[in-house]
């Protein structure tokens, strides 16, 4: 029952979101038919193409037609590429998902050991040095980190070739080994945030009564941390990570651009400037669903 309620909530939110996107494009200047035909377009050709693309119908008619198709899984045709939107999405989505998966893995691998370490020895030199590193890592924007990684690891040390991205369908291994670097750019700031959040939630637990009881039972400090404090701090951390995960799966637009990863973010940015409504609508819908679903899954009960 609870899940049905949640599902209905998500559905309503997604509908509202897609309608808002639809409206936003009415306000933006620019005509997709004009973008397609360019400077030599005659008024007759423009009119014919607008008619063919269905742009001459009223707003509600177009929205109705779009949502009708979307429910059946048909997102229409890209106005720029003249091929099905779903084909375009399938070409880029796996890249974005692989990047997201790698980033999330990195965040978890970095954040948990460090968070636990700092919380185990609060105020120690390790903790204090860690705080400085953490603060710096959090403050660096992902795109800047991306440029830094490209220049240092790519151009100076030649560990990888910036821009020479290989799409998943042309070699999964090559694709993943390239994605490690953009994943670093995404993971480092987010891991730093997670470390800080984990450390502070653990420390809040530290002063609680049950911890004192556990200690008085003679448990070692390590056991208290792992068996008592961590399980109690986890629900909050889980919600926090949920937000991060949905942010990452929704697409790391800027990092994808810096590293030239042919992912969802890149397609979204280009489709907006091409006024490729159908593609934008489909991507916004996808992002909306991901954010809503992941958040409701991760929410503490």
């Amino acid at each position, binding site marked *: 029952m609870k899940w049905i309620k949640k599902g209905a909530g998500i559905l309503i939110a997604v509908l509202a979101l897609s309608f808002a996107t639809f409206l936003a494009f009415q306000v*933006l*200047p*620019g*005509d*997709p038919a*004009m*973008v*397609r*035909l*360019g*400077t*030599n*377009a*005659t*008024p007759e*050709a*423009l009119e*014919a*193409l607008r*008619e*063919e693309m269905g742009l001459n119908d009223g707003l509600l008619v177009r929205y109705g037609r779009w949502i009708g198709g979307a429910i059946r899984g048909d997102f229409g045709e890209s106005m*720029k*590429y*003249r*091929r099905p939107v779903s084909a*375009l999405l399938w*070409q*880029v989505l796996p890249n974005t998902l692989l990047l997201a998966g790698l980033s999330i893995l990195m965040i978890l691998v970095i954040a948990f050991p460090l968070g636990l370490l700092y919380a185990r020895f609060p105020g120690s030199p390790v903790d204090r040095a860690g705080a400085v590193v953490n603060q710096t890592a959090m403050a660096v924007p992902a795109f800047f980190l991306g440029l830094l990684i*490209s220049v240092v690891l*790519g*151009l100076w040390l*030649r560990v990888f*070739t*910036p*821009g*020479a991205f290989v*799409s998943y369908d042309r070699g999964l291994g090559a694709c993943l080994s390239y994605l490690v670097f953009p994943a670093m750019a995404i993971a480092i700031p987010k891991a730093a945030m997670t470390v800080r959040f984990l450390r502070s939630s653990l420390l809040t637990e530290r002063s609680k009564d049950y911890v004192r009881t556990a200690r008085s039972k003679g448990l070692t400090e390590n056991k208290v941390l792992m068996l008592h404090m961590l399980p109690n701090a986890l629900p909050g951390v889980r919600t926090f990570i949920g937000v991060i995960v949905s942010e990452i799966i929704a697409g790391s637009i800027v990092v994808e*651009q*810096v590293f*030239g990863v*042919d992912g969802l973010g*890149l*397609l979204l*940015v*280009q489709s907006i*400037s*091409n*006024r490729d409504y159908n593609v934008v609508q489909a991507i916004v819908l996808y992002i909306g669903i991901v954010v809503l679903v992941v958040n409701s899954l991760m929410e503490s009960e």
Partner: protein
Amino acid sequence: MKKVFACFLLLAATMTALCACKGGTKPEENLEGGAVVVGITQDLDSLDPHKAVAAGTREVLYNIFEGLVKPDKDGKLVPAVAESYEISEDGTTYTFVLREGVKFHNGETVTAADVVYSLNRCAGRLETSDPEVQVVPAFSVISDIAASKNAAGKDVITVTLSSPNTELIGFFTSNIIPKNYADQAKAPIGTGPFKFVSYKPMVELVMERFDDYYGQKAHLAKVTFSISESSDAAFLQLQAGSIDIFPYLTVDQAEQLEGKFTIEVGDMSLVQGLFLNNAVKPFDDVRVRKAMNYAIDKKELLTMLNGGYGTAIGSGMYATFGLYYDATLENAYPHDEAKAKELLAEAGYANGFTFTVKVPSNYVYHVQTAEVLANQLKKVGITMKIELIEWASWLSDVYKAHNCEATIIGLDSQLAPSDILKYYIGGSAKNFMNYKSDAFDAAYTKATATADTTKKVELYHELQKYLSDDAASVFLQSPSLMVAVNPKLAGYTFYPVYVQDMASVYFKD
């Protein structure tokens, strides 16, 4: 050119020497084959050459498609799918004799029917017209396209015009495609030196050498046009070695690449201008427009943007047009701030004024130009505010609705002088600066219909003079094009039209 030739000689000499030692290998073999990656920064807008709009698409498709004629590196039109052509004295009939045995990439021979179909499609004369096909506006004068055989049994295409136009030949570069082939936009088929292999949106287009090409065959076996989302990303790839040729370097980038890449410098063949809306205040006053011209220092602009390369222009044409181009106008408005201020005072703007220039944000070059110009105008008291707009907005707002005070853009052209001047015809939809001159319009009509070259040259000089005298806009320059080429490659050639010809490129050793 001399340099390239010298390289050839040197190369030939070394080859011969090498062969003498090894005894046996043919020297040409070393020149053939290999794969090259060319970086481009604009995705292709269609693979169907008749639907492609962007210059960035046409420069790629040039390798796959050809017209009846095609431009050579000097801007002359040379026969391609046609083996010869003739224009009647009165400028109303164009006759093309087709080359025999030209093959499409699917192995079929080009027929007269394919040519007639292609021309009809470009002229918008097919029965069922596809709204996406870019109809060539100049072809509207065509009244008939017919195929026949001449005495020697060769196919002849005769194009008849309803009114004389002696410059239409420049538009017969329109590409020849197979008749009624439905998949042109997915798996394009043409007659060019390279054939299409694959295309992935936002990623790349791959082509291979076409071995049945009738003319000089390409050297490279495979060319990949790799699409980068920005010039910066492409520059990284270039430095990292995953791109061999990159055609749009900035001066700074070119400097950084020195020693690692061969930097070739050519001309973009564009009229870059600060185009002023002649219909709005204060630009409706010719004195203000002249003041703008005097206020701008083109020499400084060229230094700052191109490191001194590029050609300053004084009217709406560039030097590629040879005889038709009037070079004397280049210095019609020498940089003179005092004169600019004087003219402004006369027009009632002694304290200057403020206006907004709309610049398409995807063209970094035009944005940089705007920044330099804003500084120069400041010195005579004019404040130019820069408003960056998306390309889609530029098309609908500036180009279609003529809704701007000023804009910066580059205008390109077919190899016909009437094509580059078409923007200034009074009342034309393309006249986004709302320039109005009855004298210009009358001379334009005359010029396109005149067959006599001397008379024609005179008329085109007259047209350029009107634009300059009326200070229709601030005509800036034909920008230079800086191309990074992998030092292992040779043969990169510039054309007076915007293309990347890969057929002439080869590996040195």
